[in-house]
């Protein structure tokens, strides 16, 4: 396979970043936007081509004779050599999940580029200040995200992991004049940084024991006769486990070191994918422009954690306890986020919590995936859900963006009854809601159903729990839908334009994404993406009993939402009065932010930094200064020696001479 295309896929966004960043201010807004979009469009084409080649060309570097999909290392360039073995390389690994991610990222990114052309201007069509910068940052993000998914080694992943974090920081803080945006961006960066600390230590541990950063050396075996081609193999992971088990220190504090390493790495994933308790940054990140939320905080960056676990999936398989942790964290997060999403007022927040909840679905799905259950259905389901979720969640966000753009507020209380004035937005939003709720035949139904069935195979408790969350999902999504589009007639405040559908640059992406959400469920994902590349028949594992139950649950959720929110009524308020404590806790997101606030401000700042700074200025510096003071004091103290009196001089002289002799005599005796 030609090396040019993969390089271009990475190089074009990077070039666009520098180009727009350095010269953007010199060109017109429109030109900058168009250039950015065109650049992304070309990447889109190239990525589609690459993915198409990978999945369907049938080349022997992509598929072996048994039909198993292989991993192909397109290129691998040494970037930094730590030791003989530990080398960071920058490369491009093509395998099922990276090919899939290429498609996801470029699709969403292109849509967002296109959409922003319309979104990032006011009602008079005047472009926002910093429009070029926005496109530059979008390009930077796309570059980083693409680099992340194609990373053939964990350190490259970490590098791009940090880069997406930084571009996310820049984009959340795009409206840098708004203090809330600034603090949200700061929060996002620091929370994920904290998670990355765990990631880093995990990488260090893993690489120290195994002596490599390369994913292929951790999870795969090379395919004979083909350079750069490997196949996922559980045996490699087992031998890695043996390395840990036979080392001088196989356990640490009761758990095996491999578990530690994997959990620490997962901690990085928790940060990026906003798993509890590191989720607090994501709702705040909605301060960024809505297209950014769609791209970064719904479709791509936040699934990096899932992607990371999927990358190392064979290794995670080795440690059951790590898998259990993933499952538990995922399950708790999913439920928590769904609960919170039920009562939020800000539509972007609702979507944010829904994102958290859906990513948690993917996590759970990975956590329960085992080769022995449906040949690792959970893994496939997780990736499938990643794909479908990216599409419909981006759709929802872009729809929400259209609404916000039209209304000028994030609050649903300012919306209501918009279905007539914004029909395209309404329809596409509804499709998104149906997809996420899991209504057949929309894409979400298929992926969620598979997640649930793999949960069911693993443990009935997990299955019930996740089904409950699925029901909640349907409920809160339709609550949102009704509150925006129904509830009561829309009243345009004085002096505002009546809401209407947005220009084509904004509606076109909505339509495309809605279309994808409608049909994506029928993609034979099992043929394309499985944990070890071995394709299997998707329908063979399709469990109609599970499917019908989940469908039922979803419909119940929707029904409840319809009852409560379709028309203006007293029911929601009654519910709220009935369960005041629950409502308050949900509304305040279970006080996680307050807890963090307490920890960072009171403990880190108040109990560590401030005392340390005080200690530094007064004790350490005080000690240094006190040397000077002491010297001065001593100088003052011996002042009387130089009294100006000859007789005293002579007296001291004599005493000195006698002491000199006397003491020496005493010592000698």
């Amino acid at each position: 396979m030609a090396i040019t295309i993969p390089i271009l896929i990475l190089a074009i966004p990077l070039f666009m970043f520098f180009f727009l960043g350095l010269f953007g201010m010199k060109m017109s807004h429109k030109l900058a936007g168009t250039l950015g979009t065109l650049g992304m469009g070309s990447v889109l084409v190239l990525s589609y081509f690459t993915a198409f080649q990978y999945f369907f060309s049938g080349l022997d570097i992509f598929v072996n004779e048994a039909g198993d999909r292989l991993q192909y290392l397109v290129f691998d360039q040494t970037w930094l050599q730590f030791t003989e073995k530990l080398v960071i390389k920058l490369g491009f690994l093509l395998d099922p999940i990276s090919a899939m991610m290429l498609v996801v990222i470029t699709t969403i990114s292109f849509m967002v580029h296109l959409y922003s052309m319309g979104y990032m201007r006011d009602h008079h069509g005047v472009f926002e200040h910093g429009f070029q910068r926005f496109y530059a940052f979008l390009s930077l993000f796309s570059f980083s995200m693409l680099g992340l998914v194609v990373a053939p080694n964990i350190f490259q992943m970490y590098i791009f992991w940090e880069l997406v974090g930084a571009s996310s920081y820049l984009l959340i803080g795009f409206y840098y004049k708004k203090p809330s945006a600034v603090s949200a961006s700061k929060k996002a960066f620091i929370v994920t940084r904290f998670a990355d600390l765990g990631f880093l230590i995990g990488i260090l541990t893993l690489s120290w024991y195994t002596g490599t950063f390369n994913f292929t050396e951790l999870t795969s075996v090379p395919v004979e006769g083909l350079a750069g081609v490997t196949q996922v193999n559980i045996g490699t992971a087992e031998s890695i486990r043996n390395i840990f088990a036979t080392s001088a220190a196989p356990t640490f504090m009761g758990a095996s070191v491999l578990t530690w390493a994997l959990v620490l790495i997962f901690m990085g994933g928790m940060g990026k994918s906003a798993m509890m308790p590191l989720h607090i940054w994501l709702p705040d990140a909605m301060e960024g422009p809505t297209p950014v939320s769609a791209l970064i905080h719904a479709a791509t960056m936040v699934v990096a954690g899932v992607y990371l676990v999927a990358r190392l999936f064979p290794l995670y398989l080795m440690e059951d306890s790590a898998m259990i942790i993933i499952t538990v964290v995922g399950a708790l997060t999913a439920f928590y986020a769904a609960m919170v999403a039920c009562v939020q007022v800000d539509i972007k927040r609702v979507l944010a919590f829904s994102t958290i909840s859906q990513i948690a679905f993917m996590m759970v799905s990975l956590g329960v995936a085992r080769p022995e259950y449906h040949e690792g259905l959970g893994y496939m389901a997780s990736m499938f859900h990643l794909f479908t979720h990216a599409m419909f969640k981006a759709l929802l966000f872009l729809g929400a963006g259209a609404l916000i753009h039209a209304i000028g507020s994030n609050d649903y209380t300012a919306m209501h009854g918009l279905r007539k004035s914004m029909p395209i937005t309404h329809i596409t939003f509804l499709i998104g809601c149906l997809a996420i709720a899991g209504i057949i035949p929309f894409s979400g139904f298929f992926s969620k159903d598979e997640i649930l069935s793999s949960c069911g195979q693993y443990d009935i408790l997990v299955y019930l729990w996740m089904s409950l969350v699925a029901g909640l999902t349907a409920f809160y999504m339709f609550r949102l839908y009704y509150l925006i589009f129904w509830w009561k007639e829309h009243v345009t405040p004085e002096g505002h334009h009546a809401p209407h559908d947005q220009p084509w640059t904004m509606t076109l992406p909505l339509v495309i994404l809605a279309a994808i959400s409608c049909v994506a469920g029928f993609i034979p994902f099992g043929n394309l993406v499985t944990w070890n590349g071995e394709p299997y028949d998707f329908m063979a594992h399709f469990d109609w009993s599970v499917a019908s139950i989940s469908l039922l649950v979803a419909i119940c959720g929707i029904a409840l939402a319809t009852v409560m929110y379709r028309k203006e009524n007293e029911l929601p308020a009654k519910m709220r009065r009935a369960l005041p404590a629950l409502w308050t806790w949900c509304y305040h997101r279970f006080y996680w932010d307050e807890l963090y606030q307490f920890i960072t401000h009171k403990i880190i700042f108040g109990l560590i930094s401030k005392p340390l700074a005080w200690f530094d200025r007064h004790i350490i510096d005080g000690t240094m200064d006190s040397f000077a003071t002491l010297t001065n004091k001593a100088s003052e103290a011996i002042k009387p020696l130089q009294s100006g009196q000859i007789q005293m001089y002579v007296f001291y002289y004599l005493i000195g001479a006698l002491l000199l002799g006397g003491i020496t005599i005493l010592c000698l005796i």
Partner: protein
Amino acid sequence: MFSNILIYFVIIPLLMLGGVGLSRNIRQIRAVAVIGSVALMALSTVLLLQYLDLRHAGETAPMLFTDSWTWFAPLNINLAVGVDGISIAMLILSSIIVFAGSFASWKVPQPKGFFLWLLLLSTGVFGFFISVDLFTMFMFYEVALIPMYLLIGVWGSGRKNYAAMKLTLMLMGGSAFLMLGLIGIYYHSAPEGGQLTWNILEIAARDSIPHGWQSFLFPMTFVGFGVLGAMFPFHTWSPDGHACAPTAVSMLHAGVLMKLGGYGCFRVAIYLMPYAAQELSYIFLILTGISVVYGAFCACVKTDLKYINAYSSVSHCGLVLFAILMLNSTAMTGAIMQMLSHGLMTALFFALIGMIYGRTHTREITQMGGMMQILPFLSVCYVIAGMASLGLPGLSGFVAEMTIFVGSFKAGMADYLSGEGSLRLVFTIIACCSIVITAVYILRVVGKLLFGPVYDKHHLELTDATWWERTSTITLILCVAAIGCFPNFFNNLINTTFTPEIFAVLGK
């Protein structure tokens, strides 16, 4: 004598000194400074290329371009020069910062005196890095220290008297210990009856310092250099000193001078006394480990930009010494990279702070805000510097820190598994935590200073960077990015130094 390229690193600054001395107006002084610093950059580039050529050709000597000219024959004091990858890296760093510093002090008052002292300082720095003779090394070291007093005292701001005195006395206090250590090394540089020497290479080759003496001399030299490397608890000169120093001086001091500390710790303390380095490293590991997090925590609550940056320097330079003490090639490579990286980015920081201060006349972040709207160029540069500082990939901080962490983790695990205690491992993890704390204080500053609404309406009238300021900052940013994007080049350059022989002595 003049056939050796290295000697020109001292001659050019001396010529510049003469040139500035003879200059009659500020234009001539600027011309001398710019031409000289460009010449220095060119020279270091030429040196780099020649060095790489020689290495490619298979030269395996620990140092190249070695030469020695007798100075005080009876004491065997020579003006001995020689460079390896580390010294070359430091020379390049110094010449870049001198260049950037010259531009940053374009409009300094009393330029003649200022540049004279600045160039004397640079002479010391360059001399230090090319020396392989302990005596000349020490001499250049002190030459580089003393101009600080006047530079801060005369051209500084704030409590400059206090700060200048404190800085000078503390650094000289360090060098008092250092001098004793160096003389001690000299007297044990040969077995009984042998010819004593000051030459580092010879001492290292002989490895004849008795172990008992090493245990005494190692702390002396390490503390001596460590004071300049801002090692806890001897770092307190740094916040005050930097806060009061003029821009170019802060740049040079934090960018280059503090590197003398780390370089010296490696070149003298560790390289010459490997036994004690192993036995006693735990004391200094604890101290430097504390430096790393302590500086970062302190930076979190400071409100003066220069104080913040000074404490951040404590943290970053602590990491340098920390890595050196890990005694393995990866960590040490990381340490040198960190020196480069910190040198460049902290110089960039100080340059920017100076430029902002020159406009707003305050460094309190509580008194400023929304600079991004007023001074976009400087603000963007500040963000880039901040990103480099908190270790964004693609900029220099990341590669340096990662190399250090990988190396020290390696050392820590090796210790842990061989039952030698988990001190290294624990402190490695503690040091890793600094990446989070760094993010906290950097983003805090960026958020308060650059973003948000404009705090002071008077600031709206400020103008953005002038061309010389742009030259200064862009140079530094390019270098920061170059290290960040092509780390392996520097890695290889530095690695040529860490020949197996060194670590054969160190035993790890």
